[in-house]
Structure formats: structure tokens, C-alpha cells
């Protein structure tokens, strides 16, 4: 019995690391935020729980499939060479089966909950796995746009589930994530430049140079602030929260300008971290804007 428990514990730990829990958690939080922006007079806890489960399954599943597909380049890159698939702790077939099981069950659950919500979730998985990872990631540095669009799907899905239809606020929220994701990916492209080069992955810094990439990061840090600010205003967020948005946006712009004027790894990484905190704070603010 103890042996079975030990095996279960070790498998769970390995599978958990396959889901990139931080990234999955952040995307899940955007989905919850999207749902809560619908401002139902009473929070529908059962629906919220279903959203949590279905989105977690879909996001974690597609992440595992991505990791399965990228196992060869993960093994080459220093940053990722310790992942379970790259080290052989989990076999490729096992990972693929798990990824397919999770993503398909998440999609089916989403379709049963609300067909439109299910459709948005399915499109998100398709864009992430097929278009971004399998088709474009190894061919073009511009693949990150598709990575961004698929990253915007959870918040749009949450909004769709809450509203019952797709609206402008949903698009704005999705666009804010779309523009945030390139800052995330490009910062890693700069920090682990040699890793990507040795794995033969085309990135913005390797094709357009560091200074242009920093400029793109700076611009894509500001655009989410504008987009989520507009969405928050349309949602009818309280003035106090809008003031925090304003203040944090000014900080973001200052850091972005500073990263272009005096580029350095420190400012660049600082901008990335600030943009991430900005997004997380935005999610919290639009989620808990209870009147």
C-alpha cells in the first residue's frame, strides 16, 4: 500500500511539473477574472467551479502537449533541460496520453456547460498547440503573436461564459493578454538568447537585434495597460480602482521608456516583472470590483 502511495505521489509531482503550474495558474486567474467581470448580482459558485475545472483541464492539457512536442528542444536548452520529459522521467507516450486526456475532457466539459464557451476554449487549444507550437514556433519569430492570441482565450472564455455572448469588453480583455504575452516571451528570448540560438528557434533578438526587441517589449508593455484600462472603464470599475490603474500605468510607461533609453538586463527583467504584476493586479481589481 505504501509503495502504491509513493508511486502515486511521485507521478502526481511529475505530472504537476508538466503543467507549468505558475503559467497555468496565471491563465486560469485571467479566466476567472473574465467570468467575474460579467457582474452577475449573485456569484454563481457552481458555474465558477465548473469554469475552474474545465479551464484547468484545457490549459494544463495543452501545456503538456506543447511540452511533449518541444521535448527535443527542451533537452538542448539549459533553462528547460531538467523538465520531466527532457530528462526521461516521464515517457513521451505517457505525456501525450495525459495531455490529450486533459485537454479533450476540458473541451467536452466546456462544450456541455455552454457551446460558445466551449468553442472559445477549443479555439484556444487549437491556436496554442497546432498553430503556435507545432506550425510556427520553429519557423518564425512572429509566432508569438499566435501564442499571444491563444493566451487571450481563457479571459475571453470566462467573459463569454459570464455574459452568454462575445462583447467588446471581452475582446479588449483578450487583447490586453495578447500584448502582454510577447513581453513575457521576448524577455526570456533576451535572457536565454544562447539557449534559443542553440535550439535553432527563431526569436526577435536573433533576427531583429536586441535594441529593436527592447523597443517592441516596451510598446507591448504599454498596450495592455491601455486595453485593460479601456475594458475596466467600460465594465464600470470604481474610481478608486481606476486611480490605481492610472498610477501603475504611469510606472509601467516610465520603466518602458527607461528600458529603451538605457537598456540593460536589469531594467528589461524589471519591466517584465512589473508588467506581470500589473496584469495580476489588474485581474484582481476587475475581479473584486464589488459595489
Amino acid at each position, binding site marked *: 500500500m505504501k509503495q502504491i502511495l509513493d508511486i502515486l505521489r511521485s507521478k502526481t509531482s511529475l505530472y504537476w511539473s508538466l503543467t507549468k503550474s505558475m503559467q497555468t495558474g496565471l491563465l486560469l486567474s485571467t479566466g476567472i477574472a473574465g467570468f467575474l467581470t460579467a457582474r452577475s448580482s449573485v456569484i454563481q459558485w457552481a458555474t465558477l467551479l465548473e469554469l475552474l475545472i474545465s479551464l484547468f483541464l484545457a490549459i494544463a492539457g495543452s501545456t503538456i502537449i506543447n511540452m511533449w512536442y518541444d521535448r527535443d528542444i527542451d533537452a538542448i536548452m539549459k533553462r528547460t533541460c531538467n523538465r520531466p520529459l527532457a530528462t526521461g522521467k516521464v515517457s513521451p507516450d505517457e505525456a501525450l496520453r495525459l495531455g490529450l486526456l486533459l485537454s479533450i475532457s476540458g473541451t467536452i466539459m466546456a462544450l456541455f456547460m455552454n457551446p460558445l464557451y466551449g468553442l472559445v476554449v477549443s479555439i484556444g487549444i487549437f491556436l496554442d498547440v497546432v498553430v503556435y507550437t507545432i506550425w510556427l514556433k520553429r519557423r518564425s519569430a512572429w509566432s508569438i503573436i499566435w501564442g499571444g492570441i491563444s493566451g487571450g482565450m481563457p479571459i475571453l472564455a470566462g467573459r463569454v461564459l459570464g455574459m452568454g455572448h462575445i462583447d467588446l469588453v471581452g475582446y479588449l480583455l483578450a487583447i490586453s493578454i495578447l500584448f502582454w504575452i510577447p513581453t513575457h516571451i521576448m524577455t526570456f528570448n533576451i535572457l536565454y538568447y544562447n539557449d534559443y540560438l542553440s535550439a535553432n528557434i527563431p526569436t526577435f533578438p536573433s533576427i531583429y537585434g536586441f535594441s529593436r526587441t527592447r523597443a517592441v517589449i516596451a510598446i507591448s508593455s504599454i498596450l495592455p495597460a491601455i486595453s485593460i484600462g479601456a475594458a475596466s472603464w467600460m465594465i464600470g470599475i470604481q474610481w478608486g480602482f481606476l*486611480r*490605481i490603474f*492610472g498610477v501603475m500605468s*504611469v*510606472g509601467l510607461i*516610465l*520603466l518602458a521608456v527607461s528600458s529603451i533609453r538605457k537598456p540593460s538586463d*536589469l*531594467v528589461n527583467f*524589471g519591466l517584465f516583472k512589473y508588467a506581470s504584476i500589473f496584469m495580476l493586479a489588474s485581474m484582481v481589481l476587475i475581479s473584486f470590483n464589488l459595489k
Partner: protein
Amino acid sequence: MKISKYNRILLLLTTVFASYLVAVGVDNLNAIPIITYTIGFGTLLVTSLMLNLLGYDALESSIVIIISTIIPLSLSLGLVWQYFTGLRQIYFVFSLLGLFAIALSRLSSLVKLTPILISLVHGISGLTIFILPIIITINHRMPPIFYFVGLGGGFIGVGSLLLTQLKSNYPYVNRQVILNIFPILLFLATLSFVIGFTAY
């Protein structure tokens, strides 16, 4: 020099308290004080957040002196606007000119003028935040707890002076001491403002 864990927690609390002040603390005031206090507390929020993310290297930037001027100027302008209506225009002009002059001297070739301008602008704005709450509470226009705003102003004043020392060629205080004390002062100032602003 790395920020200690203890100071990181203080900076995080400063961010949280400053966010509270921006979002809730100034809600019941008129438009101009809301704007000036939002600028002041917002600068505290962003400063503490950036210090936590970038470390003490954030203090190396040439705009630090300008930022450290914005906090006392905006807070003192808010107080004057609320309680000394006769001085509104003159203090508003003083604030704008003071900030502009320090920014100009810092970012141009007039760097030698910066210490004089800082002493003048910080001196007046710092004393305003420190003394005005005393006068206001003595005149029973606000409850005694409002004096914490003056205390916060005092902490901000000391912090600004230390930052100026950091940028000085002949500092009186050791750099390491300044860097260790600075997060504590930011935290104490913000905490005092939170307590003081409960008077509204």
C-alpha cells in the same frame, strides 16, 4: 547591495498601504486634493514596487531626485488646497515651478544648482506637511489623529534628505546605512498617512 528579506516585506507592505490610500483613502475629498494625493501616494506605490523589483539599483537613476520631490510637493499642495484656500494659487505656482526647476537642473548642465533648489523646495514642502496638520488639529478642524499625516511628512522629509545625500559627492551618512534605512522610512511614512487619513 541586496535588499534584505525584512526590508522587502516592508516595501511590499508600503505598496499595499499606498494602494489602499490611492483607492480608498482619498475617496471623500474634492477633485484637486484627490489628484494631488493620488500623485503623492501613487509615487510611493510605484517607488516601493520598483525598489522591490529592481533592488537598490533603482535609486541610481537620475530621476530619483525628481521623484523624491514629487511626493512632498503633491502632498503639501493637497493640504494647502484643502485648508488654506487663500494660499492655493501661490502654492500651486510654487509647486510647479519647484518641480520644474529641480527637473531642469537635474537633467541639464545646471546640476550645481540642484542642492540649493532641493533645500528650498523640500524645506518648504516638508515643513508644510509637518506643520499644517498641527495647526489644523489645534484649530479643531480635524481630529487629533490627523497629526499622523504630519508625522508621515516628517518621515518622507528624512527619506528625501537621505536620498539627496546618496546623490551627493560628499555624503555625511554612509551609503549602506541610507539604503538600509530607506525602506523603513517609506513604510513608516505610508503607515502614518494611512492612520492620519482615517480622520476623513
